[in-house]
């Protein structure tokens, strides 16, 4: 899933400063799960903004709140049409995709990001999220014992550890496991160390000229149900 962190109240207040009526828009999917922008966070932020405005004595914002099931899906965005008629700006607590989807759908409205979209990851323990995939477009987890060196090695190198690994940790961060130590140990356990002895050529970055697009329509056409 996509993981994000809410921006500071100060930065959010700076962004919304020019706008009177602001719709705080949550997202019911990833942002809800990672506690950055679901219904609960929308409500907390709404209160925080009101309190901050009252304390500072300046600002005349009116806030509205709403949470969509998914901001990144046009189908759900249609449900917003009536709610944005009289707002001056949308403060989206969706991920970067949500913010842009809302902006594309409502071309006359400023859409502001309320969170910093961070990475694709998983919960490690309560409130702790770890990055696990960089969406490189060329998955090699089958060769690396299910541990991604591109994501988890700070250098994203492919042919084994650098010399900076110490106590199983990374030179960039002593709290971070060395991906290649993890990969070596797990390959060894699986009896697959041959995978690591193989030479891996330089990565092909062609799958990643941004922005990327995936077309699945062709496969749907076979069933004759789409278009």
């Amino acid at each position, binding site marked *: 899933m996509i993981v994000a962190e809410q921006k500071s109240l100060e930065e959010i207040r700076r962004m919304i400063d020019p706008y009177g009526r602001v719709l705080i828009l949550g997202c019911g999917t990833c942002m809800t799960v990672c506690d950055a922008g679901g219904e609960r966070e929308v409500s907390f932020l709404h209160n925080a903004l009101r309190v901050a405005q009252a304390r500072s004595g300046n600002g005349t914002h009116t806030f509205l709140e709403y949470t969509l099931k998914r901001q990144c899906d046009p189908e759900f965005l249609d449900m917003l049409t009536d709610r944005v008629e009289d707002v001056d700006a949308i403060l989206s607590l969706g991920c970067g995709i949500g913010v842009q989807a809302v902006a594309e759908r409502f071309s006359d409205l400023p859409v502001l990001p309320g969170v910093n979209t961070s990475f694709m990851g998983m919960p490690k323990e309560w409130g702790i999220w770890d990055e696990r995939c960089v969406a490189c477009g060329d998955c090699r987890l089958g060769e690396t014992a299910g541990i991604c060196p591109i994501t988890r090695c700070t*250098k994203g190198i492919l042919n084994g550890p650098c*010399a900076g690994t110490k106590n199983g940790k990374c*030179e960039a961060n002593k709290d971070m496991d060395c991906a290649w130590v993890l990969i070596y140990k797990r390959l060894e356990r699986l009896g697959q160390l041959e995978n690591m002895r193989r030479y891996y050529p330089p990565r092909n970055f062609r799958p990643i000229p941004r922005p990327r697009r995936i077309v699945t329509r062709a496969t749907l056409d076979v069933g004759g149900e789409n278009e």
Partner: protein
Amino acid sequence: MSNSLFEEKLGSDEFLVTTEIGPPKGTDTSEMLHHIALLKDRVDAINVTDGQSSVMRFASLGGCLLVKEYGGEPILQVTCRDRNRLAIQADLLVAYSRGIGNVLCLTGDSIDVGDHKEAKPVFDLDSVQLLRMIRTMESGTDVGGNELKGAPKFCIGASVHPEADFIEPQLLKFDKKVAAGAQFFQTQGIFDLGSLRRFMQYASQFDVKILAGIIVLASARMARYMNDNVPGIIVSQPVIDELATAEKGKGLQKGIEIAAGLIRTIREEKLCHGVHVMAVGNEGVVPDILEAAGLVDVHV
């Protein structure tokens, strides 16, 4: 045609001595030129570091051009941290055309340990891929498969970490570097000759030359600092204890003695094929170390 004088020496039975100089942070090359003059006739080759510890400095390529200009034998250190495959190949074409014959291929330190922590880390290649890329260029094409008008020829080396606390994956990578064409290895700092002996038992099966990395420490404090902050360095406790016995102001002298002692033993016991002296900021004392190690007459 090879530009490398060092390659000829690799083919001999000579005990090889290389050292490194760190280029200046700024345009003032006077200290570097002083070190080049001091060292060029005392060692077989001089490495010029490539933004060591991810600290921005005068370029390695520029430093090697100066070594060459002043009559030394340069080893160009190339890391994959700052340049993608296009930029590295472009630099290598310049290097070869200006008479630089040796390249040390390194992955490069993490950006996080340096002085530009907000910079974009590149790592388009790793050290093994870099070695192979050079061999590809030598065959007359760039790594994109396009023909080169004039191909380079380099003596190429790499690094290995015999004192790594988990050696197996390091040895596996060493194998890959050998297979990729590395002719010589300059090891990470050696402080415990036992680990060098064990490593050489393994490495001697390969037709490559191993130069033991000798780091000159100036104090116990510096040793502890390097242990905590410099990637790939594990100064053993006995060495730290010995440094701590030095009188105030005599730490560097003690460091010179330790380094010279290591070199002397390595040479006398023929533990490996040579040494690579890394004085990290104290390049001026390298002649003293070589003299104390009994190497002074070998090269001058």
